[in-house]
């Protein structure tokens, strides 16, 4: 994803700033990039450029240069404070084809009731254990009809369907700097053609919606599913499809699904305000 994005920046003619040194690279920083094998509707990235740009022109040109399925939703000129400070947690939607919603709900209840749930993950450095429960802020099971966070099952499952087979994540991006948000294109025609053949559609499908804090080491949707296996022996018959729906700071209200939009502050600043270009503290 990072490479695809950097190449699109070059094709779009974005005047990037480069790091100094023997092996210069463009100044692009991802905040909490989605793990391999999941889809995303909300990725955020900060880029640094060498001259002032119109955020909407940047959004449009970069969007046009990216492959189908990777959309730039919004670009804003970065204000004070780093992007990382504005992102605390992710809202995940995880579809579990073949899992009864009631069974899933019971597993989620047990997970939330637990104080700590250790799960194992295979990393490059071998097996490591982490507490998956600690990062889960909230979790609930939604159904198709009431799935208020969902834009319709068809849409999300399509996205995940394409991405879960690939080695690389295809999240989308938001740059800040002139910064922006992107997502994967759910309405793509070829995706629609493919989903019709997905054999599990007719089966029951439990849908989990969870807000997960971005910790180090990161607790991924996979780890949450491992936790469900630990507490309730829940084993999905086919691989689950996870989609990141939003990122942001946790809202004090703690209501499920309400994360504070990381770009709200930048957007509030008048779009006509002239940023201070390269020396802008926000785009360092």
């Amino acid at each position: 994803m990072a490479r695809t994005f950097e190449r699109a920046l070059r094709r779009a003619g974005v005047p990037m700033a480069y790091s100094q040194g023997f092996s210069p690279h463009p100044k692009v920083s991802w905040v909490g990039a989605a793990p391999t094998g999941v889809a995303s509707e909300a990725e955020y990235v900060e880029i640094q450029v060498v001259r002032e740009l119109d955020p909407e022109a940047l959004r449009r040109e970069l969007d046009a240069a990216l492959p189908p399925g990777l959309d730039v939703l919004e670009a804003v000129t970065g204000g004070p404070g780093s992007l990382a400070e504005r992102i605390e947690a992710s809202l995940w939607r995880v579809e579990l084809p073949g899992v009864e919603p009631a069974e899933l709900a019971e597993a989620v209840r047990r997970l939330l009731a637990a104080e700590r749930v250790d799960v194992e993950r295979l990393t490059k450095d071998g097996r490591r254990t982490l507490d998956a429960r600690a990062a889960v802020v909230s979790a609930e099971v939604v159904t198709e009809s009431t799935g208020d966070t969902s834009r319709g099952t068809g849409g999300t499952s399509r996205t995940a369907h394409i991405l879960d087979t690939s080695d690389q994540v295809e999240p989308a991006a938001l740059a800040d700097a002139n910064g922006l948000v992107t997502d994967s294109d759910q309405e793509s025609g070829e995706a629609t053609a493919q989903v019709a053949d997905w054999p599990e559609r007719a089966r029951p499908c439990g849908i989990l919606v969870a807000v997960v804090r971005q910790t180090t080491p990161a607790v991924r949707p996979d780890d949450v599913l491992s936790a469900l296996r630990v507490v309730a022996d829940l084993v999905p018959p086919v691989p689950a499809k996870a989609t990141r729906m939003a990122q942001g700071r946790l809202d004090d209200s703690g209501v499920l699904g309400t994360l504070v939009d990381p770009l709200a502050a930048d957007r509030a600043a008048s779009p006509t305000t002239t940023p201070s270009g390269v020396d802008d503290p926000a785009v360092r």
Partner: protein
Amino acid sequence: MFPRLEPLLPLVSKPVQYVGGELNATVKDWDATTVRWCLMYPDAYEVGLPNQGVMILYEILNEQPDVLAERTYAVWPDLERLMREHDVPQFTVDAHRPVGAFDLFGVSFATELGYTNMLTALDLAGIPLHAADRTEDHPVVVAGGHAAFNPEPIADFLDAAVLGDGEEAVLEITDITRRWKAEGSPGGRDELLLRLAETGGIYVPRFHDVEYLPDGRIQRVVPNRDRVPYRVFKRTTMDLDAWPYPKQPLVPLAESVHERMSVEIFRGCTRGCRFCQAGMITRPVRERSIEGIGAMVQRGLAATGFEEVGLLSLSSADHSEIGDITKGLADRYQGTNTSLSLPSTRVDAFNVDLANELSRNGRRSGLTFAPEGGSERIRRVINKMVSEEDLIRTVTTAYANGWRQVKLYFMCGLPTETDEDVLQIAEMAKEVIRAGREASGRKDIRCTISIGGFVPKPHTPFQWASQCDPDTVDARLRKLREAVNSDRNLGRNIGMRYHDGKPSLIEGLLSRGDRRVGRVIERVWREGGRFDGWSEHFSYQRWVDACAAELEPLGVSLDWFTTREREETEVLPWDHLDSGLDKEWLWADWQDALDEREQDDCRWTPCFDCGVCPAMGTDIQVGPTGRKLLPISPVGQGSPVRNPALTAGD
């Protein structure tokens, strides 16, 4: 058929290599086209995707409104197993269509080690392995690439082979196929193949019979149909500026072996290195003009977003305007983090200005030179005219200019070679370090020597030579390693990379084999042989056993095809395939090699009658044109592409 493939993908390594979706890939409507090509590079996706030959033909074919071209690559054994289990056929990565449904199946062989992978693809596609068993319902299997200059070992599996440049040949094959289909496929498959064969530029092995002498040598190769010519000539595309492909290079999602945009700055080479098949079969030299190169780089960067531009050819520093090209491109892309590379550089042509231009705009990697032979004597034998003095001077200047790493390529097992010739490699490397330390004032410089086994190739002066046996090669490499390590002070800055001699012997069998070798390939494949170019998959024993089983009953053997020196009068398996090189000239050059006599380059000295230009009706096309790259001014800061929509603030 993606829905059938998709459930298998989570179960295999690197599934992204099978999903396609590359930037600049083309997916056309099947029913709106009349001639459909499937192109294969018979190796893993990561190796095959950047292949320029496939990319060029893919684009040329897809530019034709009624032609569709898609690509397929060798699937790894983990996916092959699952495809067999779930009855999923060999598929294209573009639209995931079954390979068996295409009209033509073109396979590009840069090396003979892809032969078993072609058999896997044919088998998975449901195409009979033997051309004789195919019907009108099966694609016509066409081989191309350098290995197609002796396709005899795979003759039984091919319907046709094209020697030389493919740009015009694929269009001609397409035209013949289109017409034949439009006429209602008269005469069936046989008639289509006859129409291809009678052009004289497309080889159809089944229309030539091979007869053998009692001692196993070939007596003669003759056509068995009236309409088929005795000799098949190679194709030569003249005027590279008229063929600026690829215009839209493919950019994969997955990682590949070359993450760069490549521009072929000239084709052909007349340096005359006697071991080099590429230099012999791609004559004459045809340069792309400086302006043509500039336009391809600009368009390619805008289409791909790559950070590196490779200026490709067999000896890139030999372009008549290489200095202006590198300086012009370096000026134009100043400040855009775009680096330039010249992958094949001769020691004697390289100069410091060039090295510095190349590293000006981007990353500095190490410098690579190919002296090929360790001693001056052996370099005279192979006609690689570079003196030790030249080499030391060149690398010293490189170290003095801040380069820290120099790689030197050599070969082992060359004709007339002795231990002494190989041990000279160690002396040269030590001298490089000694001179480099002095020039740079540093102790941490590196010199890596990389050694490949020599394989005699068809259509070269060494086509008659005895291939060195693996034991001798391995023993020499052991002695070389000892010699490098004998001086601890210098040796610790010298790295050594090499393979054992066994894979080279098998490559030698496949390079100079005849039709009888096809049985060996098939047996090896049936016993599980796959990806022979990969050391973790290659099994020497499997090849040796298959040779014993299939060749010895015919009175020949692995040794007979490899370590046996041929005589002047022997009919070679590829003699009816015309690369333009005069066989008498090749023999004379072989004798000159044995006498340690050098041959100059016809770009700077009079023609030495290798035979290619008169036989093929071609001529050398070189500059200088005297023109400059325009605009000379830099494209701007931060990006190699100028986008008016983002330059309003200027």
